[in-house]
């Protein structure tokens, strides 16, 4: 049978020629899939809603020689809360981008799917969306086998980590003060390391209760940006977007 059904989140959607779009789906059943949705930019298309980025939909796909095509689809969660707020939209993109970058086609991972869907649901309502994204990033890399070493220095094995100094993306973990040479590692204080350890295992529901200083937020953002960039070998586009809109005045 050439048709198959999946439940998936639309993690990317690019305009192709005419009214077609190429979708990147992360499905529960088959992992990452690329598929073409024909005619979905026309107002008459019934598929249009369910193929928008961040949507969680049921898809009926037809196997093709190169790319599969969307035969039918129906939206399950369309996340209007992500669409009506620029910052949440940017966070949703930050959640979808590394899933695309770190996974390979057709390798299912149910835990990744559940984490992705659960995080998008949280992002619609949670007030602490920045930490929600950080928690997602940490848990995602851990699920995919890149759990960062946050308990001791990756170089000398010093477990007291006193004082913690930096995070090395290439070594995948913390460095103590005597091992940090300061070339390509990112500043990371003891407080920041402690919060990242918490976020690695915490339920995002509890995120609103966490108190985190601006300094630690900035350190964590840089640490995870470096780590994801190193793992995906790409600069984050969604982070660039979020930074570029954070200045609400005239861009110059």
């Amino acid at each position, binding site marked *: 049978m050439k048709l198959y059904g999946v439940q998936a989140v639309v993690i990317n959607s690019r305009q192709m020629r005419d009214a077609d779009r190429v979708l990147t789906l992360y499905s529960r059943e088959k992992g990452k899939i690329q598929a073409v949705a024909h005619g979905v930019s026309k107002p008459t298309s019934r598929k249009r809603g369910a193929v928008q980025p961040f949507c969680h939909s049921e898809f009926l796909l037809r196997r093709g020689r190169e790319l599969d095509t969307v035969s039918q689809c129906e939206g399950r969660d369309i996340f209007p809360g992500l669409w009506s707020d620029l910052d949440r*939209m940017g966070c949703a993109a930050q959640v979808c981008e590394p899933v695309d970058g770190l996974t390979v086609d057709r390798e299912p991972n149910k835990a990744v799917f559940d984490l992705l869907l659960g995080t998008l649901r949280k992002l619609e309502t949670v007030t602490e969306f920045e930490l929600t994204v950080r928690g997602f990033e940490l848990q995602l890399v851990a699920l995919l086998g890149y759990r960062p070493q946050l308990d001791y220095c990756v170089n000398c094995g010093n477990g007291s980590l006193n004082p913690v100094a930096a995070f090395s993306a290439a070594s995948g973990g913390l460095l103590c003060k005597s091992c940090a040479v300061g070339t390509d590692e990112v500043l990371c204080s003891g407080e920041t390391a402690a919060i990242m350890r918490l976020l690695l295992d915490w339920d995002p529901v509890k995120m609103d209760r966490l108190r985190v200083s601006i300094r630690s937020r900035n350190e964590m953002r840089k640490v995870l940006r470096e780590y994801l960039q190193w793992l995906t070998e790409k600069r984050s586009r969604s982070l660039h977007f979020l930074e570029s809109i954070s200045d609400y*005045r005239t*861009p110059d």
Partner: protein
Amino acid sequence: MRYAGAVSRLIGELARLPGIGSKTAQRLAFFLLSAPPEVAENLAFAIREARLQVRRCPVCGNLTDREPCAVCADEAREKAVICVVQDPRDVAAIEKYRGFKGVYHVLHGALSPLAGLGPEELNIKSLIARLENGLVKEVILATNPDVEGDATALYLARLIKPIGVTVTRLAHGLPVGAHLEYADEITLGKAIEGRREID
């Protein structure tokens, strides 16, 4: 099949045009090469002239062969209402509906959280400059109803509201002639959100 230098270059250039694959590019190339020489010369001349003459209107950013463009130069158009669109083709689409008497602003694109396209890559600075003289009363955001269009509209609203100009967004409704039961969830949701009193 491989062709000699000049022919393969022509095919390559044609294949860069939207909607033209390599097969069509070959067909076009061989048509141009077998037709009388003036066919190809006229086409090359027309492309060159159009490209030289057509530029962005310094006021609204729409493509034009004179400065300012016909809409911006028209005394009868209401300069107090600016309709912001993503693409010059959107201006043409709205002009077909003759009911709009205001002027336009063409962004030449939309913000994209996933592609990492930020405001610095769009024609936004000149829009804000147009609002500074206090004569503009309303900005209509006519970006597409998708993630990119919505992101652009939300960003512009954030930028423009503090200036004290009214910001409106095109209603997201059901397509004319469509039946409710066939509408997707997003469209229906937005149509309910954007409902208005019947007068």
